[in-house]
């Protein structure tokens, strides 16, 4: 039971972080399908930091540096989307898809090159961080509390406040609803969209490192992040682009995902003899069904996906 709760909270943290990232990007008017790629890049940054920091580093410094590395690499990578979508008016779905493929490919090429350089026989794309990972975990009587859970909660509060209670957030959302109107009152739409995408890079990168440290202590970068970026997109839509609802959706989806991992521990579920795939599919099926019923009055930002052109009326 505790294991279920632990998995649920950590998966929910990942989904929450990444979905909030997507939420910022979409509120500024840029669809970010490339979250999956951003997560891979963030994971790579964090994993490298963990690999190269000496084991004697104190837990606090370790956490700060790893988070910084993940966030920075995620933001840097999201610039690819920002430049293409904001300055060059590229098709955002196309660019996002490319970023997903590029993220996994680039990370694999990089890690393999690094591993081979260390040892000629090592052609795997795996990074290990068994010892470094311990810094994130505090054992509370069987329940492994992970500092990232707290970070996710902070991100939620931060997003809620900055989106609804600050000038920046309200302006950001204006750019996703009606950029022409926003521009007419002196808001720089291009800057706002850059900000939205960069924040999504930041949170996406953070989500990436949380994901690869959840449960395992090594990661094979050939696998990317196994669709978690897409799942986060589903969480975002399920949460109707609102931070509080996104948090609830993340908990629900995290629960489904955790069930897939630990269902064998429950006699009742085990007796159903459903394959694990069913639990993995469950979040997608639920969101598809809910989408079918709610999309008629969808609260998606109105101008998302449409490149902003100053000259256009």
């Amino acid at each position: 039971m505790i294991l279920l709760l632990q998995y649920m909270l950590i998966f929910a943290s990942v989904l929450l972080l990444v979905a909030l990232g997507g939420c910022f990007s979409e509120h500024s008017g840029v669809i970010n399908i490339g979250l999956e790629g951003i997560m891979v890049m963030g994971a790579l940054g964090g994993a490298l930091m963990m690999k190269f920091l000496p084991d004697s580093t104190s837990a606090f410094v370790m956490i700060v540096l790893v988070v910084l590395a993940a966030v920075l690499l995620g933001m840097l990578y999201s610039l690819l989307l920002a430049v293409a979508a904001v300055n060059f008016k590229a098709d955002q779905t196309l660019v996002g898809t490319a970023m997903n493929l590029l993220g996994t490919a680039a990370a694999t090429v990089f890690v393999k090159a690094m591993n081979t350089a260390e040892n000629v026989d090592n052609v795997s794309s795996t990074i290990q961080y068994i010892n470094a990972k311990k810094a994130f975990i505090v054992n509370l009587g069987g329940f492994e509390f992970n500092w990232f859970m707290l970070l996710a909660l902070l991100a939620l509060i931060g997003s809620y406040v900055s989106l609804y209670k600050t000038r920046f957030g309200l302006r950001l959302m204006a750019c996703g609803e009606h950029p022409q109107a926003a521009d007419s009152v002196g808001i720089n739409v291009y800057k706002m969209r850059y900000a939205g995408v960069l924040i999504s890079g930041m949170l996406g990168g953070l989500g990436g490192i949380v994901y690869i440290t959840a449960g395992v202590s090594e990661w094979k970068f050939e696998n990317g992040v196994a669709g978690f970026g897409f799942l986060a997109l589903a969480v975002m839509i399920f949460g109707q682009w609102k931070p509080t609802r996104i948090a609830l959706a993340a908990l629900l989806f995290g629960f489904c995902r955790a069930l897939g991992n630990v269902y064998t521990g429950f006699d009742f579920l085990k007796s159903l003899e459903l394959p694990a795939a069913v639990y993995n599919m469950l979040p997608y099926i639920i969101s598809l069904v809910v989408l079918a019923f709610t999309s008629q009055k969808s609260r998606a930002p109105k101008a998302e996906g449409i490149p902003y052109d100053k000259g256009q009326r």
Partner: protein
Amino acid sequence: MKKEKSPLLRNGAVQSLLASLLCILIGLLLGYIALLLINPAGAGEAILTIVKNFMTYSRTTAQLKYLGSTLVKTAPLLMCSLSILFAYKVGLFNIGAAGQYVVGAGACLYCALGLHLPWYLCLMAAVLAGALLGAVSGVLKACCNVNEVISCIMLNWISLYSVNTLLTKVKEETSPYTYTLSSTSPEAILPSLGLGGLFSKNQYVTIAVPLSVIAAVLVWVLLEKTKLGYELKATGCNKFAAKYCGMREKKNLILTMAIAGALAGMGAAMLFLTGFEQWQCTQSAVPAMGFNGIAAAFLGGLSPIGSIFSSYFIQHITNGGAYVDKTMYSAQISDFISALIIYLCGFVLFFKVALNRWLNRRDEKKGGGGK
């Protein structure tokens, strides 16, 4: 007024070709730079290996054989790119080609290995499964206003997990792979009609290769020369205008996605029914074929005929990646290059606009000087 012949650079097709070539060049260049960063010693050789692919073999028979292998995988890629292109022409982004490909693979392999049906029935099953999955996205879009990109992404993962579960029933006991076609049900292998003989007895070269080219031509005819194609495109341009003109816009949307799905599903059958690959029942990521199809479709300038060439090119460098010196580089470098190329395709529109602006300015200058 005298009708002037427009200069070559104004021609849309020429512009698309130029833009695609530019994408390829920049993609290869960036790939080369990445190789240089990893290990400067063999970078030049490695990029040449990737571009050469099967031509690294010195004997003609070996060259032909591996050209055949490249073609075997080009056929499904071409089908996926056709699927994406077809939907894109109707204003839909079919990111679900990957999922439709997966269910196609699941359907044809189960029919072949589980039910021991002949190849044409397996092929039909794959087409139907793909079409069905496509139609689901279409119905959700038409009736419930669900964005097709989102529903396709969900369906991709749902189909991956379902197909993994289904094919576990026909997998080898000791490995995560499905039975081989040749050992379990040879009647399901696509007929070769002597085509294999042309490629140094490469038994995997089957009717799939010419079939995919025929499909490309058919898609072109359907889109450009028929009433149905015109209606579909009109619906894509403006759903409401199409409805106003008496077209059944909902039916058109669903039909488009079904056709796109059928194309992708058929692509899967064209690969898995040759016996070239087995399905791995534990795979945790949707196969990249559908996503590479996006690359091929855009690189081909969104034209069915163009995508024949671009699909071949993408597969060519992907296969070429397998030949790089593994002590220095990894095969994924070609995935890296093709992902870069897709990314660059996003800039094609901008490139065309800039080119036209430049041409206009040049013409203006000429006109001013003549006065």
